[in-house]
């Protein structure tokens, strides 16, 4: 797995304000004002630099809402009704619109499912990265162009100069996700949220993107929140897993424990389903489902 969080004895006692914590969620509740129902019933998590936390759950379990709350982009009439979100030591509830704009990109970035829809179809993808570097990074047009090509190269896009000049409709899903990742990390954020970032991609591309995320986490010291409905994806990268169902946290803990020794019935069901329908069973290697993923991670 990725590097273990550095914990000093002194920090343990004052966990509330640990300087290494980049993202802290305390009993976050999300409420829909239109239907007057609570959608997420108390999520807590603590994320440090270089750490990867996974959120697993089926559609509608509140994974994406939790991410959107962290990014400050909840849909209209849906709001955080309880608990607190602390981004780099700042309480999200006290942030103004201007504060959010300053934080996004520079402190927290995100990539999503269906990367094509998250890029402007009328502007070349290079221009969209260049725009962020220029407007937020303060680079000149020329420097921003050069840096954009570098970033495209760093996410292993072949022929980055060529990609720079292309439009969304000219690129494949895997390439677009790399472009989105390059844009998300362009301002050196502390936190990256990958909300079902590999879901719409085919299996080999999915593995490549996961490798890339692992590499970036290690190289840049990013704190990564990896959201997926797929246990295998989470198993490959995460230090800690949080299992969500209908807005409730069913189980939470170190990945190895959750996968090998699930305490709750729902988690056991998820793991069992994976063993039943996964490729490992077909190949007759059900003995240790985590083994091949660990190998993948080292590639």
């Amino acid at each position, binding site marked *: 797995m990725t590097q273990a969080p550095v914990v000093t004895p002194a920090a343990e006692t004052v966990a509330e304000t640990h300087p290494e914590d980049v993202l802290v969620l305390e009993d976050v509740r999300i409420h829909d004002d239109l239907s007057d129902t609570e959608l997420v019933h108390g999520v807590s998590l603590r994320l440090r630099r270089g750490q990867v936390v996974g959120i697993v759950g089926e559609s509608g379990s509140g994974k994406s809402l939790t991410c959107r709350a962290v*990014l400050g*982009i909840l849909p209209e009439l849906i709001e955080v009704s309880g608990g607190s979100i602390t981004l780099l030591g700042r309480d999200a509830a006290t942030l103004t*619109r201007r504060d959010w*704009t*300053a*934080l*996004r*990109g*520079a402190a927290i*970035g*995100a990539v*999503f499912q*269906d990367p094509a*829809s*998250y*890029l*402007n*179809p*009328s*502007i070349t993808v290079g221009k969209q990265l260049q*725009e*962020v570097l220029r*407007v*937020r990074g303060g680079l000149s047009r020329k420097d921003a162009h050069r840096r954009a090509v570098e970033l495209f190269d760093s996410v292993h896009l072949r022929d980055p100069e*060529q990609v720079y000049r292309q*439009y*969304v*409709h*000219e690129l494949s899903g895997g390439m677009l996700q790399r472009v*989105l990742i390059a*844009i*998300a990390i362009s*301002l050196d954020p502390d936190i990256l949220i990958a909300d079902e970032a590999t879901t719409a991609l085919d299996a080999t591309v999915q593995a490549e993107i996961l490798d890339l995320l692992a590499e970036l986490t290690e190289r840049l010291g990013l704190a990564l929140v990896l959201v997926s409905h797929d246990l295998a994806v989470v198993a490959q990268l995460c230090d800690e897993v949080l299992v969500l169902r209908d807005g409730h946290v069913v189980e939470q803990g170190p990945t190895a424990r959750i996968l090998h020794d699930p305490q709750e019935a729902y988690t056991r069901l998820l793991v069992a389903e994976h063993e039943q329908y996964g490729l490992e069973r077909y190949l007759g290697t059900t003995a240790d489902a985590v083994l091949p993923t660990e190998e993948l991670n080292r590639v």
Partner: protein
Amino acid sequence: MRRSRGRRLAVSIGKPLAVFVPVFLLGTFFTFLLGHLSGRSPAYIQLGDAATPEAVAAVEHEWGLDRPFGVQYVDWLGDIFRFDLGESWFNGHSVAEVLLDRAVITLSAAGVALVIGVVAGFALGALAARFHATWVDRAVTGFTTTISVLPPFVVGIALVAVFAVSLDLLPAAGYVPIEAGLGPWLSHLILPAIALSFDTVADVARQLRDGLVSTKRENYVTGALVRGLGPRRIFFVHVLRNGVGPALAVLGLKFPALLGGAVVTEAIFGLSGYGVFATQAAIRGDVPAVQGVLVVSVVLVVLFNLVVNVVLNRLAPAAARGV
């Protein structure tokens, strides 16, 4: 795969041009055919109803009307390419020369109306989209619906009654060339232009509002937000650019209406533009003059739509893949 900027531009101009040529040829052909089928003859305009058949034949021979239809058409079309629209049957003046003077007046009015349509339409549409689903949105929708059903002749008369007669702020009628100064020129044009523009303002505002509201829901707007771009930048670079398409397309459709509406507004405001010229020519049975007006209209409308297409393709390159 590799497409240069130059090729993109060439495609965005070449495609509409491929549309322009057939539309121009068909349009002019039907224009000429209609004139031919009207059975009008310069002989009756010049000689009166009591002309003898010999005299009629002589006049028609003089105008070349006894030649076969095809020969006349090719001859006429060839003249058009030399900017010669023939001579008026009524007074023998060059149609092209007379039309040019008239068209300047009509195009001035239509141009000012277009500017008002774009500015007011965009402002109202953007306002409604910004305050989507609030009272501002509903007020704009109510206003645009109201003005869209007011015909130009009613609006024109009302504007004259208020601004020219009651308040005495602006001249009620007439035209002053732009050489006489921008102020007087505009003061004579502003009322007819406003009367003409209402329909355009309403349609542009409604299309822009809908375009912007649906674009604001797109994921790439969320994407731009997550990248940390400011609201103003997101609106102009990401929302407006992608949401403006329908409003621009409507503008292309509205241009013929602005030219056509000139017939009524020119009559009300005493402008001797080409709308008035066309009506007079049609009543007199002056076929070359009417044909001239139609040819100029076809060219203006197709050219305007060409420009709209080029702009649209430049704004949204993905849209150019269709068709």
